[in-house]
């Protein structure tokens, strides 16, 4: 592999959790998200020569992602559920400066603590990528109830992580 290709691959590997989260904050549909991320990866490779190494790579990569998001939003018909330019700019600056919160590595354990229906809901929501209404049909629940249940699961997981962080002495 050429030197620069190795370099950009390395840089990209460490930056991609942040870039992925930035894209996820705006492009909610999982398949579209994959596509935008893929396009971003390509764009990063293709325009790597234009990257100024004195600037932080993460910020630059997020900028590249922002352009891909813009193209994506333009391609789709005006979707109700899409953030405004102003919000996108706010989020860009937030992700550029930040890093993932602590404790995410505890997630697998916390997920294992979910029981029965809660776990089923997660599987349907994240493995099969079903929307609450489809989940509701599958397991015989009202869509609203599914939405509420998912909200409680997220809270439960957050509390679980915070608990582990506190015990660790970090939180």
């Amino acid at each position, binding site marked *: *592999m050429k030197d620069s290709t190795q370099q950009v691959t390395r840089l990209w590997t460490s930056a991609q959790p942040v870039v992925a989260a930035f894209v996820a904050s705006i492009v909610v*549909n999982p398949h579209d998200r994959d596509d935008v991320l893929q396009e971003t990866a390509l764009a990063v490779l293709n325009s790597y020569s234009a990257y100024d190494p004195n600037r932080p790579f993460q910020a630059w990569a997020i900028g590249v992602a922002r352009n891909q998001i813009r193209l994506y939003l333009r391609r789709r018909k005006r979707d109700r559920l899409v953030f405004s330019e102003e*919000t996108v700019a706010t989020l860009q600056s937030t992700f550029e400066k930040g890093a993932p919160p602590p404790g995410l590595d505890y997630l697998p354990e916390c997920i294992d603590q979910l029981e029965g229906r809660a776990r089923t809901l997660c599987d349907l929501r994240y493995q099969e990528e079903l929307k609450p209404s489809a989940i509701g049909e599958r397991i015989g629940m009202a869509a609203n109830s599914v939405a509420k249940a*998912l909200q409680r699961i997220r809270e439960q997981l957050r509390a679980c992580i915070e608990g582990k962080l506190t015990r660790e002495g970090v939180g």
Partner: protein
Amino acid sequence: MNDELDTLISAYFDQTLSEEQLGELETWINADPENARRFADAVYLEERLGAELKLKGFTDSAETDDKIVAIPTVTRRSWVTRTAAMAAGLAVAAGLALWWQADTATSPEVSFASVIQTLDVKWAKGYEMAVGERISSGVLRLEMGIIHLEFDSGVEVTLQGPAEFEVKSVEETRLHAGVLTCTVPPGAEGFRVDTRTAQVVDLGTAFGIEQREDGQSEVSVFDGEVEIVTDKDRDKHLLTEGKSVQLGADGSLSEVEFSPEPFEKLWPAASGIAGSTGDFRFAPPWPRRLRLIQSDTEIFVLPEGYRTELEEPCPIDIAGSNSADSPIPAGQRVRSFLLQYNPSNAEPAPRGERIRRIEGSITFARPVLGLIIEGGTLQETDARFSVRSGRGPDAKRGLEGSPPGIADDVSLSEDRHTVTLKLVASGRFSDHVRVIVDAALGEADSH
């Protein structure tokens, strides 16, 4: 965290927000960087949650495999696959298949082939490779010796140094310098080797190229046909079995006499032979127009066709494994070699005259699955393997068992790679031994 905001954020992820609610969420995010920060944290958690669950789903369903081929169009995309795809998004861009490995800390490299075997190789400085090593896009350079490569498609390439060989993809390569032979199995047609002045596309099955430093190259077709497109005038030329062309440094093309000689040294390696001692002579691995070769002093090694998958179990006389001499099961991919001793039909030596012995050993790159030495078994397996291999008259075949004193001997080494042959040149019988060698795809030789 504010209950109402929790609801809004949760609903945003599940895409159940109303337009009004979206406006509320945005107002809150933009009001304070701290709010934006909390929203971002929620996104990180949500992303990771989805990833972990996908991973659990992915690994649960693929219990036996450690390695999973993930092609960009696969519908079940795990976070890991996506991560790997993004980390090596460049490779995905080129539309290449990606090997997913259990630990994704390192970015996976896309590779298309393995180094199967080397013979007295001296690599160029900085280009050293080990047997079993995977080859990704790049250049192989050797100063001398012979190497044998196997692509994931089943295409086999043998190179003789000094040589420079560039691999671009699983079906696109370039020979900058050196001597190369190539066999292309069914299904892999279209494999391409570029010379300095032309493209050579294999339409099945075997050819060789000699690329000289002065820019001139020669292409010979041993089996099947190839298509040559010169860079100069983009003309297509079809070259068939038993024909050679010369490609000038200026890009010209002219037909010349068929000459397989420059490739002779590669035949053993191309056949999967790691070495030999004694009185052996090798024929190339593709079907040959050989008339019966008679020699009193040499044993001929005739590879019988390319590797094939056994459709029925294959009977053997001496087993390669410790188990009893049971047949090799169907489905096994094998290569067959016929070791042939055909002395001229001279009068048997008068009694008392010293009896000549011929001996030698052949070492195969892959383990031997079985040896066939008895006339009956030989005949039975002839139908399966013998392909224009120039068999002789079969008045009596197979190694003689007796009488004592002129008994022949064939043995297999403990590591199953070396066959040793001791034949008595009694001048009357043709001796044949058929060697069945393991040829499963995708396994590098450990010898």
